[in-house]
């Protein structure tokens, strides 16, 4: 049997934000929304379920979450069922697993779903759970969490390349502006002009509140199928063309340079090579802007901006519509919020919608054919990239 082409044929997300819903209720909500969005999808045809979730064991005190999600969504997977975890990249991992399962013939119709409930009555407890994404026993006792780590990244980038707070704010302004077109975004109704962003409180110097993504509740789901089934579900699938990952280190002592993310260069190269394209081919990208400085370094590592010039690239609007590449038209993690396991799935939903012409004009990428999704996880110690091509179902 040949390795099969795999199409992403639809998907949806819940409203992201501080939700008065449990993890189970978010899973039920996204299941109902998915079947409403895709009336041709029948539960009994879904043979496999891949759940991306980062820390339900802690945030929701619930383990064995793949069958738990299946019950909430009204699914009875009869080929493959599993949960994939890669912290902030757990959702993309679920899609990659679904891809491999379908390509290899193990599955024909798979749902990849991401669910995360992060807003708890005790946010200090939630912060502890976030902190254990890093090396808990050796870095954790010092107070290692994402904000001070990425703050050091920003500090070094500012020192080495002269990147400014204003350039970082340009990233946040763009992504929040795109989020204002996206009713599912956490900050859909909030305006963040640049001058306001620069007056927000400092969270971890030099990062201000507007430089950081949020603790968010949300869920998202997509459907992937073997090529020959794609036309049953859509006439505008997103084809999975390339994937790459790289894992460098874990303990912060082994990070090496904070500003040169070699793991991302490797993962991007692998994904581009498999897709047979390069960075210049990409029309739009959903990249991991957990912090503004992340998106700036990602411009550089993907090769859209020269090394050290990511800040200028942002300030020049090169990641905006009309720029070199449209980055985070959905609103990014900054504008949409970052429900860890759901983020990578929601990014893929945006890819599908852009290809299908189902986004408002204010964020529509003109004639998109190639898209890229990127997630980093932890302290940017792992990078995950997928490349999609739009096109007709065969």
């Amino acid at each position, binding site marked *: 049997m040949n390795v099969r082409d795999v199409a992403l044929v639809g998907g949806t997300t819940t409203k992201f934000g501080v939700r008065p819903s449990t993890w189970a209720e978010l899973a039920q909500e996204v299941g109902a929304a998915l079947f409403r969005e895709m009336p041709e999808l029948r539960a009994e045809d879904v043979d496999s379920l891949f759940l991306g979730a980062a820390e339900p064991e802690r945030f929701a*005190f619930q383990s064995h979450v793949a069958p738990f999600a299946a019950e909430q969504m009204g699914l009875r997977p009869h080929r493959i069922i599993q949960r994939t975890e890669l912290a902030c990249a757990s959702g993309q991992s679920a899609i990659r697993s679904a891809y491999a399962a379908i390509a290899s013939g193990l599955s024909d119709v798979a749902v990849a779903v991401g669910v995360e409930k992060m807003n708890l009555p005790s946010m200090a407890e939630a912060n502890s759970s976030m902190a254990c994404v890093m090396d808990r026993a050796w870095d954790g006792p010092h107070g290692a969490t994402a904000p001070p780590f990425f703050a050091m990244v920003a500090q070094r980038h500012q020192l080495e390349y002269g990147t400014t707070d204003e350039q970082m704010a340009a990233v946040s302004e763009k992504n929040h502006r795109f989020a204002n077109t996206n009713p599912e975004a956490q900050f859909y109704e909030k305006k963040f002009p640049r001058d306001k962003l620069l007056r927000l409180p400092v969270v971890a110097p030099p990062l201000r509140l507007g430089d950081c993504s949020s603790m968010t509740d949300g869920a998202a789901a997509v459907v992937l199928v073997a090529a020959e089934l794609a036309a049953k579900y859509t006439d505008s699938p997103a084809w999975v063309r390339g994937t790459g990952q790289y894992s460098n280190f874990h303990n912060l002592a082994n990070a090496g340079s904070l500003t040169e993310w070699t793991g991302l260069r490797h993962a991007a190269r692998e994904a581009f090579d498999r897709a047979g394209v390069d960075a210049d081919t990409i029309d739009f990208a959903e990249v991991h802007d957990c912090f503004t400085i992340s998106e700036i370094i990602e411009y550089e590592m993907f090769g859209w901006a020269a090394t050290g010039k990511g800040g200028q690239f942002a300030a020049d609007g090169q990641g905006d519509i009309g720029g070199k590449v449209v980055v985070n038209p959905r609103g990014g993690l900054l504008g949409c919020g970052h429900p860890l396991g759901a983020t990578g799935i929601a990014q893929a939903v945006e890819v599908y919608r852009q290809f299908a012409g189902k986004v408002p004009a204010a964020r529509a990428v003109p004639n998109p054919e190639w898209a890229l999704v990127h997630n980093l996880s932890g302290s940017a110690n792992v990078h995950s990239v997928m490349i999609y091509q739009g096109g007709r179902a065969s």
Partner: protein
Amino acid sequence: MTPSLPTPVPPREKRPFLLDFFPLETADQTRLSHFFERLKEGIVSTTRCPKDNLLLWPPRTACPQCHGETLEWVDLPERGHLYAFSAVLGGAPLGMESEVPFAVGLVDLEGAPLRLFGRIEGRPWTELHIGQPVRLESYEIGDGRWFYRFRTEI
């Protein structure tokens, strides 16, 4: 269905959420707060899909069969009988060690197609038998929240 005994409930030590089995029950945390409000009135209820005529457990916000989100609340019958039971004689989770030994079982409700799992109070596990009649009851857990359990008929 009668609320639990009127004896005062000993106050419950506050536990971190990741060690607290009981659900958060207020409307800012769950869309199923009606269930817990009804529990305080001594009634165990659940949701039902009118379209599929399907009684669902646990209570839900979307039907697992038709995926619709229009469900209705119904009260459960309080009588049932033991389908299976066992007891926890050791190895209890944190916070339940002082309750050991305790009995648990699966209970077929009378007049509703549901077999609920729950704690079995009233008699020690050595005096239980399959088929034994039990009754659903609600109780305050000690911090203002309520839950349900079964009690053997006298």
